[in-house]
């Protein structure tokens, strides 16, 4: 029996391909994309304020509400600002770290450093944000205790806390592609630049930065997009501050069409990002 199946399969590559593709495509296209499309269609529906049921008449009312209400506009801008700040902070922290790892550390040290960067990726997301709650606690937090003597005060829970927390979560995702990109960069390019009289900073700006740009885009895909949809971090260390994800979460049970409308923003931005990343060839740099 099995032998027969094997023989038929061997003679018919189309059938083999069909057997391989059916289950994953059903799962990802029909189940996942189908669910996603069903949700996003809701953005054009409304809710009956009396019964709370979704009314399936096509209209743009939710989008008008979203763009005209200053409160929602602020949440969108704030979320974009936070995601941007996280990306900048991660980039500034990651570049020197990745450079030291790739170009200065000895091969043995390099291995240990990579392991040190990878380990926190496996530590629970929730635990890491919880850790920052104890770090940032105003008054008796660890940060005040640690840096208080040098005159630093914890920013407490709010926007800056969210930026620190999200940067903490996604920093390894920025370091790793940069490290890979810098490792591939031939050291003699840097030597040549130095021999021709360029200073360190000039070499960095004109030689290194353009060459590691795809890695930077790859890293920013995580720092930016993962920040964009987050709501747990904002709930735990954001104080009263809300991000897009919080608004989606709150509307989910009371007004699904409006939750779907808000959700179109991160989905659209992400789609643009993925398309851009594909064009720079950064997907191959992950």
């Amino acid at each position, binding site marked *: 029996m099995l032998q027969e199946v*094997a023989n038929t399969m*061997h003679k018919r*590559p189309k059938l*083999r*391909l069909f057997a*391989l*593709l059916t*289950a*994953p495509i059903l*799962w*990802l296209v029909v*189940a*996942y994309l189908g*669910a*996603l499309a*069903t*949700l996003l269609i809701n953005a054009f529906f409304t809710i009956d304020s009396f019964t709370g049921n979704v009314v399936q008449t096509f209209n743009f009312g939710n989008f008008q509400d979203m763009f005209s209400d200053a409160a929602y506009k602020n949440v969108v801008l704030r979320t974009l600002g936070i995601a941007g700040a996280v990306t900048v902070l991660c980039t500034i*922290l990651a570049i*020197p*770290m990745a450079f*030291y*790892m790739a170009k*200065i550390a000895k091969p043995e040290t390099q291995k240990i450093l990579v*392991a*040190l960067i*990878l*380990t*926190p*990726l*496996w530590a*629970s*997301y*929730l*635990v*890491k944000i*919880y*850790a920052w709650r104890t770090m940032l*606690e105003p008054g*008796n*937090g*660890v940060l005040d*205790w640690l840096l208080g003597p040098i005159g630093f005060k914890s920013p407490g829970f709010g926007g800056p806390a969210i930026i620190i927390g999200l940067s903490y979560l996604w*920093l390894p995702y920025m370091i*790793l*592609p940069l*490290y*890979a990109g810098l490792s591939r960069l031939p050291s003699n390019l*840097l030597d040549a*630049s*130095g021999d021709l009289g360029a200073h360190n900073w000039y070499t960095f700006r004109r030689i290194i930065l353009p060459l590691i740009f795809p890695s930077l885009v790859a890293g920013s*895909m*995580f720092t930016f997009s993962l920040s964009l*949809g987050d*709501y747990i971090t904002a709930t735990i260390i954001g104080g009263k501050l809300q991000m897009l994800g919080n608004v*989606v*979460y709150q509307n989910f049970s009371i007004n699904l069409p409006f*939750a779907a409308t808000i959700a179109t923003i991160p*989905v659209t931005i*992400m789609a643009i990002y993925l398309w851009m990343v594909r064009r720079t060839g950064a997907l191959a740099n*992950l």
Partner: protein
Amino acid sequence: MTISKSARLALAALLGIGLAFIYVPLTVVIINSFNASRTFSWPPTELTTKWWAKAIENTGVREALKWSIIAGLSATVIALLLGTALAFAVSRYEFFGREVISLLVVLPISLPGVVTGIALNNAFTKQLGMSTGLITVVIGHATFCIVVVYNNALARLRRMGTSLQEASMDLGANGITTFRLVTLPNMASALVAGGLLAFGLSFDEIVVTTFTAGPGIQTLPLWIYNNLFRPNQAPIVNVVAATLVLLSIVPIYLSQRLSSDSSTGGRF
């Protein structure tokens, strides 16, 4: 570019600051689990192991751990099957839409979890009339776990080429025998790495889980989240948190033994 001594020192200092930024909070979590005080106070005035003993006996934690493991293993098995099949199709065949597969698999993990979560919840409960529970959690988790298996399997298949399989077939082995004796052993370490990553992703997931788990199911992240703001549970939460930090060394140790195909272990 000869890097001057001062530049080296400056870079080493920045690396040190970065590592401190990463490791100080994790260290705090571990120390805090031994903090004798019931409410949060820093620095701890007295250390104790009694919270560890209490946490081990805690039925809520045990139950949550059980659900996390069951959901993680089920999602990993599905992701292994679907991800490997997809990787075979993409690496060995030409077909319409092949170029967008890599985009399709990465989508569930790149779109915000809250969007995936409410989309699945809406589809399960409103469109299909299902009630949420273990099955819906597993379906949700498997969806975003496929990508890590796919990436690892694809990288390995591309590196392997087809000559070994062709040799096996030329020597008279049929497709099944070739797969069992040639292809699978050559892919084993990539599949183990992918499976490990998939389990790790599932074990840590909270957002999609929030929307797909019914009232009867509480995974470990959900348990932590639900008890985070309950002051009398704080010591137990601290111990669970410390355990998860310490456990993160295990997969790193395992992956050092397996060689992985890319810098992130093909996580993305």
